[in-house]
């Protein structure tokens, strides 16, 4: 094993030295690597003699300590001329500079009237302060001071080789000071709005750009407060300016833009499930940070990410720390068990931050997991460092990777070494130079080395991939000998086949589902467990979406894995054409968005950051490429299976992203509509009637989508027999329930997102919605920008997409809550036409229910098919360039 490890080291070092761009920046032990290249048998210099399981520490961005020459005497020649060359920044400097100046370029958007001459350079003297209150003066001065120091930083950093990073640091600082200033008036709405208006009116253009930069940064952190601050100006400015401004402010720029999106981490072998243990009880009041979302999306490039959140009832009052901890451990543990029962041969990886890391470790002692990754491991406790004789962690046998910050308060690299010696499990340690407990590097480090946090995070992920790849390849070989995994092997083969050519796989696929009836149970339960990704209200749909979208990163490998999952679960044979439907709809939406975008002349560079739209878009883009293959042979029975899964999943991301965008644009112009709009409450029971039809629609769509797969997986798409299918499908009642949950969630999703929309009554009774066929949603999508009144109509579409994605896309994010809560009953109850369904559903006589729903189906399918092919045809261009997608409206059915 040790030998293997060394070999792997050799390989990775060779690979990484050659390829990883980011690696170049990290001051890695390059010499060590070189030694390994030549002498792979050599023990690393840092290997501990006693602890064979502790692999040598790796360092990231740890600056080697300069050796102090003991004496500098006069005889040492002093060179006063030669300037030491500065290292070339790792990010794309040109691109970084261009995003850096985004605000400067678009500063004019903020002006209330663009025609007025810009304020002169000596604008300060012209500010008329008469009538200002003390508080106003104070606030203005504070803000001004912050902006002035930002100006100084800009000027001083101008032309520096790592100017983008320096600028980013300076802007962050300015934003912090502006935030402090605003906080000093307790974010008084009137004052902040006044300040915004005054600044926009009086500041000179360079200063205004600095102000916008600060706003942009703050918007990413405290969107609600900033939105409130901007409201007044928006109403005054008119829609165009407001929209432009809101687009500009949508997300802070990152110097490392491009680098990260171009160098995505690759998938881990064995398609592991990555369980993320939360580091504390989650709360919906404090949403996850931008960085955590980024991490989640990046991790989901490696495998499927399943966050495990813990919730405390009654907002945690009266719950002791110990109880809470037990609760957390219990949650993770049960999740692990659950996954094991559903995916017996999937490797499970536990990842946690801080306390979550500890939880992960503890769970790994109790349950079998393949590996654990501890980010920011808290080694030190009030009672001293961990690792006493009675510490259960010492019994760990799971391979574990510790990532700690060099300047961490809860951990010290040397103490960590001691601890690692005592652990029996194979373990690795990565020390991130200059980083704190949360692996955040300091400002000074950023400045001096031209780094951004996203780059560091990315390097940490590379280390994680490295470690996990080693563990997984080993365990894969190991497990492969066990009889039970022959299945997996077979699937692997199938996957390989799929990789080669999806169409060729048809016969095999066709034969496959015939035998394994045993797999059927796996399907519902599988969906259930995956669905519990979002079983917690905190793991907001948004996050979920990100995960889904990126999890399906559509390299061929990704698609193949997805495929595998499909086969395994024997569900969701979606006809290809159906699968296309959402995609085509999405095209429209996409196009609309592009239009908007074009209108606003804002370039949307891909950004590695989560939560923003940009990262999803490239993913979607690729998804469509992958989908192109099966589109060629829609008549074949097997191939659509793959096609069915993938594009739909994509649409999930896209749809909600679209919805988000929509609301982003619309809330600003129609802020008052929210009371009348769809309720934002999380409980399904309050899903208002306007959303209900869409729910039904979803339901139906979903049924259509899933049903064929379960009973007649090998059957050609034309041979969809709804009734039978439904029977098969619903055999596992859970499946239906998950479906309903999916619905509920998408409803919540939509309802919360469309809170700004006016509450129009739903367009027609539910059954009609089904028979509306495709054009309607398409039209409504098309109408997004044209009028607000049609906006409600977009809801059904979005819902459809997302819930579809939730199901067959191999990512049934759906959740049991709806059924268990009786949410469906309430939902349906709000729509008289649906009452019967709901009754039956709540009585769990699902088969009948669904039969009822499906009556309209065959016709629907036929209507859809031309649409589908149409969409399929226009896929190729999508993959090439997104911006051009505006011209690519799918042909009318």
């Amino acid at each position, binding site marked *: 094993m040790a030998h293997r490890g060394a070999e792997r080291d050799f390989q990775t070092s060779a690979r990484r030295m050659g390829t990883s761009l980011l690696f170049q920046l990290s001051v890695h032990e390059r010499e060590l690597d070189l030694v390994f290249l030549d002498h792979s048998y050599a023990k690393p210099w840092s290997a501990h003699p006693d602890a064979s399981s502790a692999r040598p520490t790796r360092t990231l961005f740890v600056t080697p300590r300069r050796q*102090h020459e003991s004496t*500098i005497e*006069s005889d040492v*020649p*002093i*060179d*006063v*001329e*030669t*300037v*030491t060359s500065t290292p070339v920044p790792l990010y794309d400097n040109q691109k970084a500079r261009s995003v850096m100046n985004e605000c400067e370029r678009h500063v004019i958007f903020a002006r209330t009237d663009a025609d007025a001459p810009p304020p002169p*350079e*000596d604008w*300060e003297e012209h500010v008329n302060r008469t009538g200002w209150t003390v508080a106003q003066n104070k606030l203005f001065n504070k803000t001004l001071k912050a902006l*002035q*120091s930002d*100006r*100084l*930083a800009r*000027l*001083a*950093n*101008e*032309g*520096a080789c790592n100017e983008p990073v*320096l600028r980013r640091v*300076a802007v962050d*600082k300015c934003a912090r000071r502006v935030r402090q200033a605003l906080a000093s008036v307790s974010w008084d709405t009137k004052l902040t709005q006044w300040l915004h208006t005054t600044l926009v009116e009086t500041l*000179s253009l360079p200063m205004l750009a600095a102000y916008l930069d600060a706003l942009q940064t703050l918007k990413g952190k405290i969107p609600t407060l900033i939105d409130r601050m901007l409201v007044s100006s928006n109403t005054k400015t008119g829609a165009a300016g407001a929209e432009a401004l809101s687009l500009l402010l949508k997300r802070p720029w990152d110097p490392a833009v491009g680098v990260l999106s171009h160098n995505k981490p690759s998938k881990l072998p064995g398609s592991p499930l990555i369980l993320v243990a939360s580091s504390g009880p989650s709360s919906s009041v404090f949403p996850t940070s931008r960085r955590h979302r980024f991490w989640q999306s990046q991790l989901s490039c490696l495998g499927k990410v399943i966050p495990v959140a813990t919730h405390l009832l009654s907002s945690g009052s009266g719950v002791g720390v110990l109880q809470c901890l037990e609760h957390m451990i219990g949650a993770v543990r049960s999740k692990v068990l659950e996954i094991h029962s559903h995916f017996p041969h999937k490797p499970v990886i536990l990842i946690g931050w801080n306390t979550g890391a500890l939880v992960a470790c503890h769970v790994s002692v109790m349950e079998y997991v393949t590996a654990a990754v501890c980010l920011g491991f808290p080694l030190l406790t009030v009672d001293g460092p961990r690792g006493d004789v009675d510490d259960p962690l010492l019994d760990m046998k799971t391979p574990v990777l510790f990532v700690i910050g060099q300047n961490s308060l809860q951990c010290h690299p040397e103490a960590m070494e001691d601890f690692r010696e005592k652990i029996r499990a194979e373990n690795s340690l990565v020390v991130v130079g200059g980083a704190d407990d949360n692996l955040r590097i300091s400002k000074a480090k950023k400045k001096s080395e031209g780094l951004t946090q996203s780059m560091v995070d990315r390097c940490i992920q590379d280390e994680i991939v490295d470690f996990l790849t080693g563990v997984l390849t080993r365990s894969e070989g190991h497990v492969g000998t066990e009889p039970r995994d022959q299945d997996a092997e077979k699937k692997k083969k199938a996957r390989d086949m799929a990789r080669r050519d999806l169409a060729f796989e048809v016969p095999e696929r066709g034969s496959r589902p015939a035998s394994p009836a045993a797999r059927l149970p796996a399907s519902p339960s599988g969906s259930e467990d995956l669905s519990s990704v979002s079983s917690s209200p905190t793991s907001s749909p948004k996050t979920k979406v990100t995960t889904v979208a990126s999890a399906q990163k559509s390299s061929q490998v990704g698609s193949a894995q997805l495929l595998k999952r499909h086969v395994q679960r024997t569900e969701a044979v979606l006809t290809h054409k159906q699968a296309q439907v959402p995609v085509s709809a999405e095209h429209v939406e996409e196009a609309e968005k592009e239009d908007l975008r074009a209108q606003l002349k804002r370039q949307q560079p891909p950004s590695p950051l989560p939560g923003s739209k940009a990262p999803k878009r490239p993913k979607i883009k690729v998804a469509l490429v992958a989908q192109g293959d099966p589109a060629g042979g829609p008549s074949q029975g097997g191939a659509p299976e793959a096609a069915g899964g993938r594009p739909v999943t994509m649409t999930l991301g896209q749809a909600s992203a679209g919805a988000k965008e929509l609301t982003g644009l619309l809330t600003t112009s129609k802020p008052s509509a929210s009371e009348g709009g769809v309720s934002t409450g999380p409980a399904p029971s309050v899903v208002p009637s306007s959303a209900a039809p869409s729910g039904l629609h979803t339901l139906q769509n979903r049924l259509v989508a899933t049903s064929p797969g379960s009973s007649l997986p090998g059957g050609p798409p034309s041979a969809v027999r709804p009734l039978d299918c439904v029977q098969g499908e619903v055999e596992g009642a859970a499946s239906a329930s998950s479906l309903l949950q999916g619905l509920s969630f998408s409803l919540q999703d939509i309802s919360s997102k469309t809170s700004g929309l006016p509450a129009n009554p739903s367009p027609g009774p539910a059954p009609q919605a089904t028979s509306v066929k495709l054009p309607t949603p398409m039209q409504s999508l098309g109408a997004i920008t044209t009028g607000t009144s049609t906006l409600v109509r977009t809801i059904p579409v979005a819902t459809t997409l997302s819930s579809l994605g939730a199901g067959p896309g191999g990512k049934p994010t759906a959740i049991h809550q709806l059924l268990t809560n009786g949410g469906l009953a309430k939902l349906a109850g709000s729509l008289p036409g649906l009452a019967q369904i709901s009754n039956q559903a709540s009585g769990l006589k699902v088969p009948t229910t669904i039969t009822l729903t499906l009556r309209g189906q065959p016709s629907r399918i036929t209507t859809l098919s031309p649409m589908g092919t149409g969409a399929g045809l226009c896929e190729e261009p999508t993959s090439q360039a997104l911006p051009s997608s505006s011209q690519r409206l799918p042909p009318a059915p």
Partner: protein
Amino acid sequence: MFVRNVAGTPGPPITIAKKPKYRAAWSRAGRLADQTWSFIAMATEESGDAKAEPALSSSTNRSQKASEKPDYALKFTLVGHTEAVSSVKFSPNGEWLASSSADKVIIIWGAYDGKYEKTLYGHNQEISDIDWSSDSSCLVSASDDKTLKIWDVRSGKCLKTLKGHSNYVFCCNFNPLSNLIISGSFDESVKIWEVKTGKCLKTLSAHSDPVSAVHFNCNGSLIVSGSYDGVCRIWDAASGQCLKALVDEDNPPVSFVKFSPNGKYILIGTLDNTLKLWDYSRGRCLKTYTGHKNEKYCIFANFSVTGGKWIVSGSEDNLVYIWNLQTKEIVQKLQGHTDVVISAACHPTENIIASAALGNDKTIKLWMSNY
């Protein structure tokens, strides 16, 4: 040769009892101010200079003579200022020499021939320091009228007046990009100004005595300031945070500071007849240059890197001193001035030294060397 009669009325007699000035002997200058104001601005060529070398000192020769001494010889004496000269600076493009004086004007001279070019009028008090922008198109001047002025050299117009200091402005410096100016003042503060708007962006107040010198490093990221409180501070230009404070053991007043051309070292002059070269990143003194006299005035010093590597400084014994940077030996003393040599500047590309003296002398001398 250019003869100019300076028109205009003599200013009010300068009060002698002002706060002690350190760079120039204004009291003497004040006496002169009552006298006649007509004078000749001119450069006299030193003919028959015995030290004139044959022009054949080849570069190969130079490298061999690494340990040898420079042979600076007086080439021109520039006469024009009516009072003590306070500062001379070569323009970065090497074409011009600017000099500031207690007579409230700045004079621009040709750097190679000492030819008078123009006079910049505008300050209504004595000028203590000037500096060129990197493109040699602008000058900034620091004056006792508590302002700084930015001048367009070509037109001779004052572009901006920077107001904000509450006492004499004593030193000033452009950053390498010339979008910022720093100034040190008798109000014990250092201010950072935006060139374009003329606004003060930051005031650094961390000295407890008049600030005697300020300087940006070569990439503009750091500022060094020296003060009579004996402390040298290094500031982050972008944030205005103090990064380091260098203090000598016996804490003599700092009269001059300057980054080395590559920004790695700092040359510090103190009023105990000493110049020291510091490695500021490690906070240690590497070289000490002594032998000259400097106890009273803020005398400029310089790195001379065009030929051999020298340190050049004026002195209160009316000489210009040249040290070998590495060995710390005095390699040449330039004799000729009749008063304290307050300023010595080195040409950016040629082996030319300009030196300026106080009120008994009022002249600028250009020295050239083949090595």
